[in-house]
């Protein structure tokens, strides 16, 4: 309950901030200049968002390379594209591009750049996008500021637009054409149109970007002179850097939960989940349906009844989360419904169901044993695994934890299928068609991480997923996703147990921070520091 209240509090806070925005900081209040220093846990191999869809990349590149469309609390907003529309048959999408925008090297941004990036990177090389754009046949440029995307199968405009903030970053054609795209030096020294220009990437230390004086939003933007991303691997050291004032912000749960709780009571910091509505993730329990025990629906339902989700939210996520309701999180907009079957915590019922399923307690005190692989994705996931093992013990199931590092986990679960149960988290990316549906759709190539490698196949579900992905009517599409969500909650191929956004710790010196639902990935053109 405490968790829910906190969540509601955050949501209310978000809405309050939203409504106060237009009347908020006026031009006179704003202090120009200064260097904003933000913390990152891990280094990035590439800074090209057209080659790698990952929040780690956007966190840096988002200030340098802009997407066609971004997402605000009021919906989708134009960035490099000013208008968008889809044809009746869904086979073509037309974008109007912003005129008078220059790349950081002075060359103009035109439709050629969009067409080149779409065909060479979004369709061919970009993860998640290559599935989304699989039916993209070509991009026409009737004039330099109009781009027409042509598809061989209908592409819902909602899906296209929802994908653009993450999967729609054009890069300059003149710097990539005729080169080996994957080895191009601009992948780690990006050239974009954004409010900040890339300066240097010192491996193991930091990335720096400076103000773009020619920014298209006007000479007053951006407010900051410089942004520095500091890599600090150790979470305790990162918390110390925040407290010492050496770092202004740490996003994506960059410090330990104990420090987050401590700093949330420190008046020097804003701590919260605002700004991550678009990056909501599910903590999961995954089953290997090749094992006849967990292939039994009754067993999976009993296990769900054995999990005290509210307790886990309070103790592990310190209230910054809420119970999951299937493959679409409550941040999923119209496609989300909470009208689904649920499995409230009831260990006695769970035991009874396991007895009925034919798994009574044996002489050793357990019904059966499960080999469980926990994902090494930080504190949440590891504690969630430990809680899972404890909770299962309560209903007399023995769980052995096979702890492993990232490559070990990915191979063990998704390639070798060497597990009975596993847990991890999976991020929802604006639209179910480009994110969580791969958990349910069968026929995923063997070894593809974060997909249905669970040996679970439902032809009905496959059909529902395919139909929804190409449905053009938004209302019908939403109904179809509600049906999918219900079916996923009935059959429980995977338990989407907890939905949680990420958490940021931000110095109160920062103004206009976390004011969009994907703030850490956005361009920070209006961010400023009060001295």
């Amino acid at each position: 309950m405490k968790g829910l209240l906190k969540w509601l509090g955050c949501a209310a806070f978000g809405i309050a901030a939203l409504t106060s925005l237009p009347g908020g900081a006026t031009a006179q209040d704003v202090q120009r200049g200064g260097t904003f220093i933000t913390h990152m846990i891990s280094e990035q191999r590439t800074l090209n968002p057209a080659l790698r869809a990952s929040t780690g990349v956007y966190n840096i590149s988002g200030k340098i390379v802009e997407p066609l469309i971004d997402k605000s609390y009021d919906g989708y907003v134009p960035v490099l594209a000013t208008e968008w529309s889809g044809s009746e048959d869904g086979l073509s999408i037309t974008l109007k591009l912003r005129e008078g925008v220059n790349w950081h090297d002075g060359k103009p941004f035109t439709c050629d750049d969009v067409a080149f990036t779409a065909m060479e990177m979004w369709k061919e090389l970009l993860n998640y996008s290559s599935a989304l754009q699989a039916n993209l046949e070509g991009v026409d440029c009737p004039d330099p500021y109009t781009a027409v995307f042509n598809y061989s199968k209908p592409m819902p405009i909602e899906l296209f637009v929802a994908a653009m903030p993450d999967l729609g970053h054009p890069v300059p054609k003149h710097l990539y054409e005729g080169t080996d795209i994957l080895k191009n030096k601009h992948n780690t020294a990006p050239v974009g149109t954004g409010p900040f220009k890339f300066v240097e990437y010192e491996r193991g230390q930091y990335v720096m970007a400076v103000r773009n004086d020619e920014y298209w939003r006007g000479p007053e933007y951006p407010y900051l002179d410089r942004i520095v991303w500091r890599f600090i691997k150790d979470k305790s050291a990162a918390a110390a850097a925040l407290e010492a004032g050496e770092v202004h912000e740490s996003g994506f749960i960059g410090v330990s939960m104990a420090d987050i709780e401590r700093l949330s009571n420190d008046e020097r910091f804003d701590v919260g989940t605002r700004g991550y509505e678009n990056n909501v993730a599910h903590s999961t329990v995954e089953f290997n349906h090749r094992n006849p025990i967990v292939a039994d629906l009754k067993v999976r339902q009993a296990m769900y009844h054995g999990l005290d989700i509210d307790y886990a939210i309070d103790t592990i996520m310190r209230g910054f989360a809420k119970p999951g309701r299937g493959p679409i999180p409550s941040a999923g907009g119209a496609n989300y419904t909470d009208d689904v079957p649920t499995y409230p915590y009831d260990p006695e019922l769970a035991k009874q169901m396991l007895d009925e399923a034919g798994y009574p307690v044996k002489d050793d005190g357990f019904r059966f044993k499960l080999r469980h692989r926990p994902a090494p994705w930080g504190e949440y996931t590891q504690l969630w695994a430990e809680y899972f093992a404890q909770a299962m013990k309560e209903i007399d199931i023995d769980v052995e934890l096979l702890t492993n590092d990232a490559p070990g986990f990915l191979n063990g679960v998704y390639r070798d299928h060497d597990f009975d149960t596993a847990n991890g988290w999976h991020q929802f990316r604006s639209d179910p068609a480009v994110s969580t549906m791969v958990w349910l759709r069968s026929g995923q190539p063997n070894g593809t991480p974060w997909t249905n490698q669970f040996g679970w196949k439902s032809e009905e579900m496959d059909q529902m997923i395919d139909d929804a992905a190409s449905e053009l009517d938004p209302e019908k599409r939403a109904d179809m996703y509600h049906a999918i969500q219900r079916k996923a909650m009935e059959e429980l191929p995977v338990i989407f147990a907890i939905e949680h956004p990420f958490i940021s710790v931000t110095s109160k010196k920062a103004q206009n921070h976390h004011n969009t639902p994907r703030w850490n990935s956005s361009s920070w053109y209006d961010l400023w520091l009060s001295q």
Partner: protein
Amino acid sequence: MRLTLPPILLYALRRLVQAVPVIVLIMIGTFLLLKLAPGDTVDALVGDMGGADANFIARLREEYGLDQPVWVQLWRYMAKLATFDFGWSFVYEQPVSTVLLDRIGVTLLLMATSLGIAFTVGVALGAIAARRAYSLTDNLISTLGLVFYATPSFFLSLMMMLLFSVKLGWLPVGGIKSIAAFYTGWDHVVDVALHLVMPTAALSLIYLSFYLRLMRSSVMEVAELDFVRTARAKGAGETRLMFHHIMRNALLPVVTLFGLQFSTVLGGSVVVETIFTLPGLGQLAYQSVVQRDMNTLMGIIFLSSVIVVAVNFLTDLLYARLDSRIELA
């Protein structure tokens, strides 16, 4: 005609020839050991990215040569290494040699200052403690040594950070320099030195305690020997006795330890560099394991084994210098 070389050069040459098979064996062993770890750099990359499709994964594996059998990969790697080509780092998208050269300076600086402080201060404190054995001074020094010995470096690092950076605000939390301060000349040197105070302290204190304890017992032992008594009987002053007769002999086991520990300091610097985000080899090694960056990791191991072999050689030379009974053979 017989080629005659001074014995020390001959000795060095023989040690060099002996070092080659040792290093080759280390490299082959590590390569195979690393291949035993589950998953490769593509898995780690895909983990970082939050997922990718199968074609993308297969294409990357092919590009990195990871689709070949292990022995082919090993052969290719060793053949390149023979020409001192460390290969390409797929994580840093740079030649491994560039990555290593960028990083080795910080680690050598950290190691040299830490070991230098640990050795000199440790030896001095140990000698003082031994000369005043069982006095208050000795008890104080020995207790201090025990505390340093028992404190893990990560804990010490974090506690120092809490005190000196967060509470007092005297020293920077981490990194090698103040970013966006753009210091030049002496300001830069002072800035870097300030950034190295805590890491050096964290890394050196545990080794300091080793040297302290060993030096103390060694001095006490040597002080009882016959030749010391003889020297004293001949009227040598306490200072002369200490520096010329006792210390020189007592240093032998300490130098042995110094040689042995040189390699473990490399290991210790992994922890310290990671906590203080110093861009050195230790931090790089840790990152490379996590990201399964084989080429970089192998390069670090190659460099480390060369350093260890070289330090062992220097230790042997130092032995011969300290104790003329030991011959270079």
